[in-house]
């Protein structure tokens, strides 16, 4: 059975698109045919992060309006032939998306793909609503600061009440916490919430922590999802997240800063 994953947050700029690109690539690399959809109509970021911006002919809105077929609009990733990107339109606004149209496209994708990753726009308005409405699993991307945590909480409320699963009284969406841009040093200085603080407020299953990392910017400049940078901390953190999502047991890394870890180890 295909699964629809929404990557959502409420708050903007927390790392949804970075995460969508990374986990879609991660799932595909592990042998699962995966599509990633940019719901951020009007902005179009995902294709840049995926490095396919110059190959966009048709987009999500064209498919919804039946101006193009899904096969015409899907772009095969240059690094992995099990990964396809459905880009957002840059020339329309979010009103171009309709629930019926989105549902139709997702149904069609479900026939052919194992995972469908929906990169949600910020906010809780129409675009974000449609991105999460049909989801089976939600990756709630949160930064370790109060306003981001609050917005994630709000989004969790909407997942639990305004999604298709909620409306039809089905099993609720599986919700996972992804804490991104985490910096143990700044936690220690009291400038950021700790993993425990966030867990305490959200009471949510922690799928993983992604450290604040220069590798993310490098990856987006070169148009390759950071998960392909296997040496980088953020790349490894995303690989762990994909593995945990697929049911593997992996210890959490990147929560302690390395110095702290060594100090603990050697008692110094």
């Amino acid at each position, binding site marked *: 059975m295909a699964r629809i994953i929404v990557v959502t947050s409420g708050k903007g700029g927390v790392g949804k698109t970075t995460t969508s690109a990374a986990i879609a690539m991660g799932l595909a690399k592990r042998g699962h045919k995966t599509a990633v959809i940019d719901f951020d109509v009007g902005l179009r970021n995902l294709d840049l992060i995926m490095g396919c911006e110059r190959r966009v002919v048709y987009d999500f809105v064209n498919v919804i309006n039946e101006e193009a077929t899904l096969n015409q609009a899907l772009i095969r990733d240059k690094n992995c032939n099990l990964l396809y990107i459905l880009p957002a339109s840059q020339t329309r606004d979010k009103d171009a998306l309709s629930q019926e149209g989105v549902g139709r496209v997702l149904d069609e994708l479900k026939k052919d793909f194992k995972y469908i990753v929906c990169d949600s726009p910020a906010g809780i308005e129409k675009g974000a609503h449609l991105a999460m409405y049909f989801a089976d699993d939600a990756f709630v991307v949160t930064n370790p600061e109060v306003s981001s945590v609050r917005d994630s909480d*709000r989004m969790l409320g909407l997942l639990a009440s305004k999604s298709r699963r909620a409306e039809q009284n089905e099993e609720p969406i599986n919700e996972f916490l992804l804490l991104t841009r985490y910096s143990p040093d700044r936690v220690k200085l009291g400038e950021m919430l700790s993993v425990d603080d966030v867990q305490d407020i959200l009471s949510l299953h922690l799928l993983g922590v992604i450290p604040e990392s220069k590798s993310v910017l490098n990856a987006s400049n070169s148009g390759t999802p950071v998960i392909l940078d296997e040496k980088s901390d953020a790349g490894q953190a995303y690989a762990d997240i994909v593995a945990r999502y697929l049911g593997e047991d992996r210890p959490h890394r990147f929560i302690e800063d390395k110095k702290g870890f060594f100090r603990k180890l050697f008692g110094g």
Partner: protein
Amino acid sequence: MLTDASNTPFALEFKSASFSVPVLVLTTDDMDVIEQKLQEKVRKAPEFFKHSPLILDLQEANNQGCLIDLFELVGIIRKVGLFPIGIRGGNAQQNKQALELQLPTHSISSRDAPPLDEKKQDTASQEPEVNTHASSNIAVAATTLITYPIRSGQRIYAKGDLVVLTQVSAGAEIIAEGNIHVYNSLRGRALAGVQGDVEARIFCFDLQAELISIAGNYKISEDLGDSVKGKAVQIYLQDQALIIKDIELHH
């Protein structure tokens, strides 16, 4: 041709009205137990129960696989002095028996209380509109149970008591006409006794609320002393003042 009756200007008229009727939710088919429990209840509040109409809710019992014989049940209920006026949630057999007893069958409306562990969103309102005061004494479904976290932006309204097993986030609001129990962190707003019940109380395991209110008397987060923050407390009204008191938890 017109008959005589149609010339009579005002013989009768149908009007629509709604009533509050207690609903008796059954969870056993042991008639001895039912009779004994009912007698206990009636003894405790004889005025409330005297000749009280009653709707029999069989859904829960049927879900649990209990086999309730309606003839027998109605016999017992009449014996203790109550007047059954209908059933709901019955199976085919019970509905047939109801027909023979000339009791109407009512549907379970969507406004009803959810099954106990069911997820409930924006409003969790409770249908059986019994007198709130008596509701704490009798076996009607007057409690709303919430087992999913109440997140920022969500609002829960309970006609009776509200029991929350999960956290109530900052930015969420829980409202009850009766008491509120939160067996977890209360970070949002909690308003008990909102229809004016000054006897209502709020109980919580970890008080971090943005606002607490009983029958319109409220305190905001700023007014909660540090001595009670993060504690297990009960909150009640005394001479129109909110009293916040530690609850000793024995582990």
